[in-house]
């Protein structure tokens, strides 16, 4: 379906200044050698003697009371080691700590269902047996009696008086609500020449479906009371603070170990309930427990992305296309439990005005629970939904008022000279030039020749569309934003840890607190260390993965929320500089000169003025570690440096919901060309361009890889990927047959480009950039709206547009047009 394949060489818009060292070069990825040989170690590769395999018994009902559970037949089967049910969990653990204020705070969430199930697939019991197959067989012998209840699957009905209530303790299906208002919204609407009203937009439910599902191998040490949890959880810091209090144990009893993780995308943050269940089983059955989630289980239960409605939206616009403000009601469907929610209720505010200079904003946020899988972070978490909404507003306004979407964007983008730019809610966009990125995107997509392409497509009977998605990937959270949803929470700031040591034979060993899932931390950390210590990345050994025993982690350690290039590499830089300082201190004693006259280069500490007066790093390591007699008593050198990076954050103002919520703002401008068959609604993305600006790039190839991955996720979500439920709460897409992720045949011709706007706020000028903001969803929606315009100007109102939805827009454009109204003065 595609004519070209290779992304064009990244378009260099601006040459970075000349820099010595490896930063900015594509050194070979350190992770690859083991991974291409099948020598990675993912959790399910960990084997233990006498290990039992866990299989979950899951609810077939969306909402039901559990009247009885009988595990006796399962336990009687030879080879079955034991079981766990909700009643035991309720006795042995406390409900997980809730982040919400009431009513959400009253929700009781345990590792297994207690008394009631609230979504299809919710774990009810666990059977552990000698083999995977036997555990599955035995799970079929567990007898559970249910008393089915009515289900709520439509968030818009969740608060109706006759709707069944999921959590009686909470009183209703409301989990959290808050009003956000900044600027002079009434004034903006009074000043507006046009008010564009959009009654309903819907951001669909999907997730990034990492290829490896969740799981763990959990061991319990009876002597010390400590659990070792080999798991692919991507945010052990968060898992630990959820699990410890629930399990009534100190965090030191929870050792997390990870080497390789088969993709995460945020979806592996909230596996703590299952991990608790495995911990209880390991202790109860005196044996290591392997829990390997099946694909269907992942789809049924884990980390769906937040589904969100935007209701009664109004946009205030001047006649010349200047955007003054907007107001809307965001209705968020959290699914059955609040595992990371209601943080989505504030995370969106990191990008309140999107890329635009909107100064007056009101957003009423309401979050409800429904009988669907719990929502948790998914690549672009909560900002993607909001950015899709802002981009939809731009294109709908442009189409309704007859304005050019390119010009509306350029007119309203935050300008490069306004950086750092403070948004209406106090976030500080650190750097960037969105208009310039748009120019690059237009060049790569062939904007000049669009009229010809359109004519060509039309001559073949196709509808032709062009669309832009411009987004921000806000990175390095200020966890103080959690207080905007619950002022009692005692979280703020952020941190990450690294250690760098020089060992006896000159080995440079780096440990990280992060849990990478393909983001190449070993490679980029090695580059940063190599440049500081004057060695090559090959000389730097970065330990793979995470282990609590390394003592190289802090409260927010993990790999999530687009931050490694800032927090992780900030910690690596700090530790490497500390080590470099110690090496010089030692060098000054041995070489007998002031530290200021020394430099680190080519594997030596040496005199700048006389390269012959040099001590190899290997000698430094040997002296301190194994040959230290006679050194000055006050020489404070260990050659084992630990550094905690802490970004500069203040507490946000809870009353005004105002403050800087993230440190960096990477930007994306994507452009798509589509051709639509007007008879069937089948469409093809015929050309695609993705421009990224993440500040200084440590390893351009890795950055481009993340851009490509985020693009692929967005295109999947825009075209096919959806978690669709029927009215009874059955998931209709519980596996890769029904949930269509992109395949090699599906990918459009792609061109990538970039500009570099270094962040003034970070140690290396870098910005986190892994999530990508979902720009592809927005670009495809915009392109479809453009393509369909000649057929009755339908309004693209959903983030997911499979062919049948496009066909519906073509068949009945008026139905979608009823969502839009323009009131002009």
């Amino acid at each position: 379906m595609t004519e070209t394949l290779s992304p064009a060489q990244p378009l260099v818009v601006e040459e970075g200044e000349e820099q010595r060292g490896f930063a900015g070069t594509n050194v070979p990825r350190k992770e690859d050698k083991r991974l291409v040989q099948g020598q990675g170690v993912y959790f399910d590769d960990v084997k233990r003697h006498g290990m039992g395999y866990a299989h979950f018994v899951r609810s077939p009902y969306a909402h039901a009371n559990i009247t009885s559970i009988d595990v006796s037949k399962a336990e009687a089967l030879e080879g079955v080691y034991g079981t766990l049910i909700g009643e035991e969990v309720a006795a042995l653990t406390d409900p997980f700590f809730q982040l919400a204020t009431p009513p959400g705070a009253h929700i009781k969430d345990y590792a297994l269902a207690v008394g009631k199930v609230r979504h299809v697939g919710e774990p009810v019991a666990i059977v552990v047996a000698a083999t995977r197959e036997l555990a599955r067989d035995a799970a079929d012998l567990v007898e559970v009696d249910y008393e089915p209840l009515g289900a709520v699957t439509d968030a818009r009905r969740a608060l109706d008086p006759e709707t069944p209530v999921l959590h009686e303790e909470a009183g209703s299906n409301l989990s959290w609500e808050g009003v956000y208002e900044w600027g002079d919204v009434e004034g903006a609407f009074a000043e507006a020449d046009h008010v564009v009203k959009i009654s309903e937009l819907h951001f669909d439910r999907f997730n990034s479906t990492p290829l490896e599902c969740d799981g763990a191998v959990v061991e319990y040490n009876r002597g010390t009371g400590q659990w070792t949890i080999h798991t692919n959880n991507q945010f052990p810091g968060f898992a630990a603070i959820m699990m410890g209090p629930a399990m009534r144990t100190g965090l030191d009893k929870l050792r997390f170990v990870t080497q390789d993780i088969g993709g995460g995308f945020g979806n592996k943050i909230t596996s703590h309930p299952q991990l608790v269940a495995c911990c209880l089983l390991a202790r109860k059955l005196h044996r290591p427990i392997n829990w390997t989630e099946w694909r269907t289980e992942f789809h049924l239960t884990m980390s769906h992305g937040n589904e969100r409605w935007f209701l009664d939206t109004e946009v205030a616009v001047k006649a010349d296309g200047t955007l003054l403000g907007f107001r809307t009601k965001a209705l968020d469907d959290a699914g059955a439990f609040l595992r990371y929610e209601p943080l989505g209720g504030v995370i969106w505010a990191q990008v309140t005005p999107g890329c635009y200079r909107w100064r007056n904003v009101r957003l009423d946020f309401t979050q409800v629970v429904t009988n669907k899988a719990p929502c948790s972070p998914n690549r672009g978490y909560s900002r993607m939904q909001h950015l899709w909404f802002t981009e939809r507003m731009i294109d709908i306004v442009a189409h309704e008022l007859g304005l050019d979407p390119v010009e509306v964007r350029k007119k309203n983008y935050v300008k490069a000279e306004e950086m750092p730019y403070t948004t209406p809610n106090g976030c500080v966009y650190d750097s960037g030039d969105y208009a310039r990125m748009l120019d690059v995107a237009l060049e790569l997509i062939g904007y000049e020749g669009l009229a010809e392409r359109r004519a060509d497509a039309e001559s073949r009977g196709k509808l032709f569309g062009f669309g832009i998605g411009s987004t921000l990937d806000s990175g390095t959270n200020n966890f103080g934003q959690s207080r905007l949803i619950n002022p009692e929470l005692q979280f703020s700031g952020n941190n990450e840890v690294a250690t760098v040591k020089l060992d006896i034979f000159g080995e440079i060993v780096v440990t990280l607190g992060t849990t990478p899932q393909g983001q190449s931390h070993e490679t980029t950390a090695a580059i940063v260390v190599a440049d500081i210590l004057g060695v090559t990345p090959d000389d730097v050994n970065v330990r793979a993965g995470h282990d609590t025993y390394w003592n190289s982690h802090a409260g927010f350690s993990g790999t999530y929320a687009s931050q490694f290039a800032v927090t992780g590499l900030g910690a690596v830089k700090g530790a490497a500089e500390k080590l470099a300082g110690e090496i010089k201190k030692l060098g000054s004693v041995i070489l007998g000169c002031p530290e200021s006259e020394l430099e680190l280069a080519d594997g030596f500490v040496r005199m700048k003025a006389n390269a012959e007066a040099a001590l190899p790093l290997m000698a430094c390591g040997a002296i301190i570690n194994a040959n230290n007699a006679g050194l000055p008593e006050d020489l404070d050198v260990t050659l084992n440096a630990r550094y905690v990076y802490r970004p500069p954050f203040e507490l946000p103002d809870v009353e005004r919901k105002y403050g800087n919520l993230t440190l960096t703002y990477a930007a994306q401008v994507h452009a798509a060309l589509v051709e639509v068959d007007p008879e069937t609604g089948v469409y093809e993305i015929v050309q695609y361009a993705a421009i990224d600006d993440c500040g200084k790039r440590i390893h351009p190839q890795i950055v481009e890889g993340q851009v490509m991955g985020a693009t692929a996720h967005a295109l999947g979500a825009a075209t096919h990927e959806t978690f669709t439920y029927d009215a009874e709460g059955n998931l209709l897409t519980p596996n890769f047959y029904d949930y269509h992720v992109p395949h090699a045949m599906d990918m459009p011709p792609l061109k990538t480009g970039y500009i570099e706007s270094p962040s003034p706020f970070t140690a290396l000028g870098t910005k986190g950039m892994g999530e990508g903001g979902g720009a592809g969803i927005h670009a495809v929606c915009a392109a479809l709206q453009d393509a369909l315009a000649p057929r009755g100007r339908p309004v693209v109102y959903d983030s997911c547009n499979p062919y049948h939805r496009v066909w519906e827009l073509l068949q009945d454009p008026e139905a979608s047009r009823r969502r839009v109204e323009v009131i002009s003065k």
Partner: protein
Amino acid sequence: MEPQTSQTITVTVNGETYEREVEARRLLIHFIRDDLDLTGSHVGCDTGNCGACSVIYNGQLVKSCMLLAVQADGARIETVEGLAPEDGKLHALQQSFSDHHALQCGYCTPGMLMSAKALLDANPSASEEEIRKGLQGNICRCTGYWNIIDAVKAVAR
């Protein structure tokens, strides 16, 4: 007579011959991963869609979650562990995947490599279109495939 629930099989994997008693219902992928401890091949779905478990079976590409271990009795199987020659170098495809950044988390990579190898074994000068078709049975969630296709193209003659 009791139905037979297990069987002794003889399988040659990457040139080494193994004789093992296996449960009749054990999937080939679990035999490879759990019984032989060759954990390079992965499991990414339960429906035969993802291809993370792809291996070469008597010269033919198969998804090893779609076969029972007993069906491999007498078979010759190649997995990712057997791809690199023994001189410490990587196979051309492995090197090309690394050069082109055709992997991130690495979970799909072993299956992807085996698919690519089967494709190029059968069609050493595969075109881009043929490569896309040849890899459509393998899901990657990290890369968007562009770099994978480039990596295979670079090895195709």
